[in-house]
């Protein structure tokens, strides 16, 4: 697993990222190197700096110091749009959906935008080809029966899936999932992660996901970054990280055995 980190240019690399909001240090010397096709998870208590990391990588925030490299080129100063265009997509802790549009239309928007040409005033959004592709995507995430619904009519799980499905329309090289299962009913968590991971691995997407549920962490990620107070306090295979006393003290707060029960 972690051996693959040395081969080829890493898909995503950060060097000494620093970010602070006033007195609060949200990121302190964050240096990681994520190889192609890796599936890593980010753990840590709220305010540990996970989401800040995601926001910096995806251009929502700019680090005070440090650089971010995507496939070797510097994307530190790019905004969300450029980062997305470059091939880094993300999902959101609170799914970011178009509340006034139906599920299908949300995906159609994503497809229209994913199109290398800017959205045309003359090309119909609902032409059959586009609708077919949209339905494929919905099917892949098993939410096709919701296609006509509005966001308010959807369960948390479906929203999460739609949110990720839309991000997938741009065929990203790197995907950052911000708490993909938060707020989702316990029994839905694994099915959702299965669907998502299946879709991601099928397209060989390098994936980082923020997660609080240690079972999901151990089950899906081949490496774990443990954040505490804006720092990475552990960076290793799941079992090693979860058995790390510092991690147990600051992140999981217990022995992993209890956490999993």
């Amino acid at each position, binding site marked *: 697993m972690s051996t693959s980190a040395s081969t080829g240019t890493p898909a995503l690399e950060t060097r000494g990222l620093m970010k602070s909001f006033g007195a609060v240090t949200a990121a302190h010397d964050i240096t990681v190197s994520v190889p192609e096709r890796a599936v890593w998870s980010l753990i840590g208590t709220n305010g540990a700096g996970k989401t800040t990391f995601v926001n910096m990588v*995806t251009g929502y925030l700019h680090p005070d110091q440090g650089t971010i490299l995507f496939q070797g080129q510097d994307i530190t100063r790019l*905004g*969300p*749009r450029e980062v*997305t*265009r470059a091939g880094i*997509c*993300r999902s959101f802790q609170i799914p*970011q*959906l*178009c*509340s*006034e*549009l*139906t*599920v*299908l*239309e*949300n995906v*159609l*928007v*994503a497809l*229209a*935008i*994913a*199109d290398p040409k*800017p*959205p*045309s*005033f*003359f*090309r*119909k*959004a*609902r032409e059959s080809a586009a609708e077919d592709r949209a339905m494929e995507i919905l099917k892949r995430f098993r939410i096709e029966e919701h*296609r*006509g*619904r*509005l966001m308010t009519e959807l369960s948390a799980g479906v929203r999460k899936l739609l949110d990720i499905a*839309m*991000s997938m*329309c*741009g065929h990203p090289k790197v995907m950052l999932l911000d708490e993909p299962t938060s707020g989702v009913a316990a029994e839905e968590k694994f099915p959702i992660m299965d669907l998502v991971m299946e879709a991601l691995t099928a397209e060989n997407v390098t994936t980082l996901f923020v997660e609080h549920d240690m079972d999901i962490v151990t089950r899906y990620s081949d490496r774990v970054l443990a954040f505490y107070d804006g720092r990475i306090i552990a960076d290793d295979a799941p079992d090693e990280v979860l058995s790390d006393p510092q991690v147990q003290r600051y992140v999981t707060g217990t022995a992993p055995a209890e956490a999993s029960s």
Partner: protein
Amino acid sequence: MKALSDIRVASLLALALLIGGGLALPDWALFLMTIGLAKALVSLGIVVQMRAGLVSFGQGLFFCIGAYVAGLMANFAGLTDIFVLTGISVLACLAIGGIFGPLLANYRGIFFAMLSLSLSMILYGILSKMNSLGGTDGLNVAAPTFAGYAPEGRALSLSLYLYTSFIVVAIGAILRTGFDSQHGLVSLAVRSNELRVEYLGASVRRTNAINYVISAMLGGIGGVITGLAIGHVDPEYAYWTTSGEFVFVAILAGYLSIPAVFVASIILELVRSFSNLYFPNTWQMVLGVFLLVIILTLPNGLGSLFHRRREGGS
């Protein structure tokens, strides 16, 4: 494909209705319809922006530019051909909208509204100062000619009305396709979640700028027709209350349906005209009450009465 032909049918139907109605209407109603439809084009411009969540309180800017193009060409260049005048004012608004669009595209909500308002108020100020252009009194505009044909009396009002009808139908059809296009859908997405649109890789600024320019051109066309129909242009065209009425019509119609905008505009003209006759001392109050009742009873505008965009899939 099916939908396209659907629009074709609708357009032809609309045209038939307008022409038929026009021939049947008495002069005063014909004129009222012409003005109503022309002003509706301006409100339609606001609707285009509303679909992306922006409401401009300054469409009077382009309404006024369009009207003054007609006025100045007629007075200083002796140009009265309605087709040429329309073309020129569209170009003028395209140019000016192209300048302000990208600037205003950075603003949202109330700031966009108020900034566009102040732009049109600046034009109002400038025109009021330009005594060479008649200052606050404005200019009279010669009656338009139609590719050499120079009608008078009823023939004039009728030709003007028919010209307006054609333009209205054409623009209606174009915008319908535009609303259903990728750009149209992305605009709706911008309306409900800008952040998502940026994170899908599209430029919200670009979307807004395009919509602004489109609405600028619509404002110009509305202005040129109104200017020619009224036969007089003055800075009032750019005054904030004028823009306010366009916004009112846009809100009254809602952003769902295009025909609704024209209906709303005509209704406003009727209410205004009759409240003026029957309540000369309290017509403003009547207008105000009407406005409040509409906003309270039809939160999504008239359009929501005869347009459901909620059956998503099928």
